[in-house]
Structure formats: C-alpha cells, structure tokens
C-alpha cells in the first residue's frame, strides 16, 4: 500500500521534472520536490514496515534490493539538487527511478537468501553494493547532462539544454564526485560478496551472470577513476565511461533478474 503511494509520488515527480525541463515555472519545480519528498517518506515507512514484518533487512531478494537502491537514489537526488542548485537534475534521475521501481514492484519472488546465507556479511555486502549503485545512477544522470550541454556548446546553436542545464565544469564535477562516492561502496560491496561467497556457495559463483556483469562494471568504473585521478581525464571521455559503466550495471541487475544464478530469482 505505502509502496504504491511512493510509486504514485515518483510518477508525479517524474512527470513534473520532465515538464519543468520544457516549462520553467517555479511551481512545477516545487511540486517535483514535494512529490519526491512525499514519495521518499512513504518509501521509508514502507521499507521499515517490511523490515519489521520480515524480521530482517528488506534486501533479501533482488527486487527488494532494487527498491532500497531507489530509496538511496531519491535521497541522493534531493541532496545533490540542493547542494549544486541543479534544479533540472530530477528530469534525468526520476525516469531511472521510475523504471527501477516499476521493475521492483512488478516482480515479487520469495526471499532469495536461505537461512544458511543470512550472515551479517551478506547484508553488508548487499547494502554497500546498493549505495554504490545508487551513486552511479546519479553519475549516469550527470554524464548525460554533460554530453547534452557539450553538444549544444559545440553546435553553437543554443537550445533548451543550453539554457536549462548547468555549466560543463559543474556537471563534470558532479560526475567525478558521484564516481568517487560510488566506487568505494561498490568495491567494498563486491569484495565482501566475494569473501563470503566461497563459504556459502562453493566455487560456483564464477558462473553467476550477475557476478560477471558486476565485475565488468567495476572494471569500467575503476578505469575511469584511475583515468580521472592519474591522467586528468575530464569531460566527454569521462562522461562516456560513466554511461558505459552504468550500462554494465543495468546489465548486472538485468542478469540478476532474468538469468538463473545465485543472485537471480
């Protein structure tokens, strides 16, 4: 019930955020923020209620985990929007939020983790990976905005995006910071997953498509971060990397949802 309230609020936020891109009315922006906040609060309560009901963190199956990731994404979105004064950010984040929450609410498998798997490390593994994924959703949004603004500036024909999107440097900083935020979480999450896997699953984890895809995503992000820190990568190259990395992450989740494996349903 509460999850549905959250979903409706997110739909509203998505619609308003996209409308705000076209029509610069303050009221639309305010409705966007309010519905996002309302959705997030409902989502929070729903998650807590679910945790109490299940007697464990509500991240025991992939759909549950995605729902929590969405929760973190919305929180980050609201925070970054305030911090960077990027009012159009929602237009690039909420569609992703919406797709993910629809995905999470449409598939409802039973808890994946058997009692033998339910160690504290597993929960931390999942939670950390989720925060990482959430940061990379924002990373992706920043990269898309960067590429759009860059195109406008190169084409020399100012359009909606030129006027509405923040400066390139701001967007570049945004993608860098979200990468720097997400990477340690993803890394620690993956390492914990790997460490706790052999004792629980034996060696089969290498044949799990989710593990494979997430390692690919991790490699892409690691490469980007190294390029940024060591070689001073900026701008387009970093933005493309963010998009490719996110595609790998989506594949990761897709692999978990659609293909059999230890993570899948």
């Amino acid at each position, binding site marked *: 019930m509460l999850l549905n309230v959250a979903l409706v609020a997110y739909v509203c936020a998505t619609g308003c955020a996209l409308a705000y891109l076209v029509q610069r009315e303050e009221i639309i922006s305010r409705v966007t923020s309010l519905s996002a906040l309302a959705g997030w609060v409902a989502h929070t309560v729903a998650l807590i209620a679910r945790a109490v009901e299940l007697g464990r963190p509500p991240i025991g199956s992939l759909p549950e985990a995605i729902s929590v990731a969405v929760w973190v994404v919305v929180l980050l979105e609201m925070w970054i929007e305030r911090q960077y004064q990027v009012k159009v950010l929602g237009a690039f984040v909420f569609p992703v939020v919406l797709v993910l929450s629809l995905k999470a609410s449409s598939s409802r498998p039973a808890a994946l983790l058997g009692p033998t798997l339910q160690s504290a490390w597993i929960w931390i593994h999942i939670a950390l990976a989720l925060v990482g994924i959430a940061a990379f959703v924002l990373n992706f949004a920043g990269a898309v905005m960067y590429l759009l603004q860059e195109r406008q*500036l190169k084409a*020399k024909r100012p359009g909606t995006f030129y006027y509405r999107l923040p400066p390139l440097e701001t967007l570049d900083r945004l993608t860098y910071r979200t990468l720097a935020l997400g990477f340690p979480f993803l890394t620690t999450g993956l390492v914990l997953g790997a460490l706790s896997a052999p004792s629980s699953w034996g060696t089969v984890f290498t044949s799990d498509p989710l593990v494979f895809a997430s390692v690919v995503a991790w490699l892409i992000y690691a490469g980007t971060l190294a390029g940024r820190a060591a070689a001073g990568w900026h701008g387009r190259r*970093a933005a493309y990397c963010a998009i490719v990395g996110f595609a790998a992450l989506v594949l990761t989740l897709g692999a978990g949802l659609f293909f059999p494996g230890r993570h899948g349903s």
Partner: protein
Amino acid sequence: MTLFVAGLNHVSSPVEIREQLAIDDDKLREVLRDVQGTGVLRELVMLSTCNRVEVYGVADVPSEARAVAFRHLCSLRGIDPARIEPLIYTRLGPDAVRHLFRVVASLDSLVIGEPQIAGQVKDAFAVAQAAETVGPTLHTLFTQAFAVSKKVRTDTEIARHAVSVSFAAVELAKKIFAELTGKAVLLIGAGEMGQLAARHLVEQGAFPIYVANRTWARAQDLARTLSGTAVPFDGVVDAMMAADIVITSTGSPQPIVLMETVQRVMHERRTRPLFFIDIAVPRDVEATVNTLDNVYCYDIDDLKQVVDANLRERQREAQRAEALVEREVGKFMLRLRDVEVVPTIVSLRERLEDIRLGEVQKALSRLSDPAPETRAAMEALSSAIVNKILHTPITKLRESSRAGAGRSWTELVHELFGLGRKT
C-alpha cells in the same frame, strides 16, 4: 475619478518628437507644479526618458487632464500641441495599470528586459513625490508596479541572457567553466570588442590576464589597462598552455591560431577545456579547432547567433512575464477598490459597534444582577440588529466602488454618520 496614462513611446512616435519632449528633472518639477496648479488632476506622475514621455494621473475627466498636461509640456519646448496630438495614446483604469506594470517590468522597452527603465520610473516617482503631486492612488499603484517589476525579474529570465556580443561571450565562458574566478585569459590583438570582452571577464574575476600584440609597446599599454601581463607575440603558444580563455581580435589577414598549434597545445593540456573567442574579421582562429575535444571556438557570427537565440529566449520569457503582469493587474484592481472604500467600511463598523456597546451597557446597568443568559441574549440581539442594518450599505459601497463611484459614496457615508475625516 479615473486613473489614466497618456503618452508617447518609441513605437508611437519618431525620435525627433521624443527628443524634443524629453525634459530634465528640474523642468519636470516645474511642469508638475504648473499642471497640478490647474486643478484638473488630483494626482500626477510624469515620466520622461529618451524612449517615452508619459503622464500618469487621476482625474475626473482624463481627456481634459491629458490635454492640459501635454499643452504644458509642449509650451515648454515650443512645440505645436496639434503636431503630437495624434501620436499620443491613452489608457484608462485597468489598462493604465497594465501599461505601467509592463513599462516598469521592461516589457514595453525597445530591448525587452533592459535594466534601466525601472530606475527611471523610480526617479520620476520620487520627483513627483517631492513635488507633492502623488496621492494615495498613484502611491499604491507605483509601489505595486515596482514590486511587480522585481517579481518579473526574479520569476522569469526576461533579463537573464546577454544581448550583446561581448556579454554573450562571457556567458558562454560561464557555461563552460561555471566559475570565472581564477580563470586565465589570453588576449591577442587590440581590437575594440576584444578588449571589451576581456574587461567583462576581468570584472567576473578572471585572472591572470595575458596580453599579446605584434607591437610590444601596445601589448604593454593594454596589459596595464587590464592589470595583466604582456607576453611576446611569438610566445602566445606558451601563454595558450596556461590560458583557459583566448580572445583574438587582430587585423591579421590570415589565421594566426592554427589547428596544428591547438592540437599541440591540447596534447599538453590533456583534457583541460580551452575556449576561443574569435572576434576578428577575417577570423584569427582556424574554425576546425572546434572539432577538437574540449576546445570550443566561437567567431563573431557564432556569437551573434547566440545573441539572437538569447533574444528569442527573452521573448519566450516575456510571454510568461505578460501572464504574470495580467494576474497582478487583476489583483491590483481589487486592491484599488479596497483602497477606496475599506477605510470607510471599517470606520462605519466601529461607529455602530461603539453605539451598540454603549447601549447594551446602559441597558444592563438598569437591570439588577442580570443572569448570564440575559446578558448573552442582549449581546446577540444588538449584534444581529447592527449587522442587518449594515449589510445593505456595505454591499452598496462595494458595488459603488466597482462602478467607479466609490469616492462620492464614501463622502456621503462619512457625512451621514458623522465619521471622522478620511485618511
């Protein structure tokens, strides 16, 4: 009693007429006093800028007031009033309110969103206030107009985007670099517009500034005026390594910044963005450099294109501003109505309430130890009578002001009930 505006602006009249009618503040004061002296206007504000001459007033017969005002203006400049008569527009009531709101919000300006007009209207209003020709209606009107103008500026982007080439360049730089503070600028050549753009960048905090010129002395001169550093002309490539923004405005017939040079520079800079503002004609920078990653190159035509887009953006924002003004006009007309009759309604209520309380008190004192129910009943009875009696007069008063006759009605009510002088 009608609020009106009469005047001529850059659309209705040619500049030859406007420049003859335009007057300074001293003369304005004089005209205000003269016109006020004729007694045909109750309130008066006159606005005189190079783009418009307008009379805002409250008068019983606006056409007469308008004729008087312009006759005085014309006699001051020796113009035949008949010549300008056909050029004058007149707006009454809500149309006059809308007109002022649009003028102050810079929606009626030659360049939409230009910043001067609000200040000019403020000055004109201050002059009229000093000359004591402003009454309650115009005071409310102008105060509200300034608030509307501010609202338009903050709620719409009508005045946001640059409409000159040099400012458009600064704006582009901000779209690339976000903060211009601490961004290095290299100015090559001494063209007028290049210097202007460099100065704007300095004002925005750009630093340090390098100046290169074929003539060393000229480079030093320019560097001094921009608080920058002169660099030798054959050292521009080194300066380009350090710079974030390069402005070129030389008279060179061939490009002086070549694709191959920029490629080399960018190799060194890695991915640090470089923004070329090429204001020279013929161009100083090879246009192909724009295809390089993290290099942005705008020539004069590109900048003009940005200015055109900005003007269109202002037009779009102006439509939103018009809607905002329309809402404000509606609100103001309601308020104006209140300005006229509300004080009367309040004092009428107070008067009758005084009487009621006094009589209730008297009646109660005649009863020995009245029961609380008796007290309550008397209160209720007297209140009901007062409200019933007041209902029709108050409704009529509101209606009268809606019909534009509020003032004569309020005077009558004050007279009938012996209310104090109105404020």
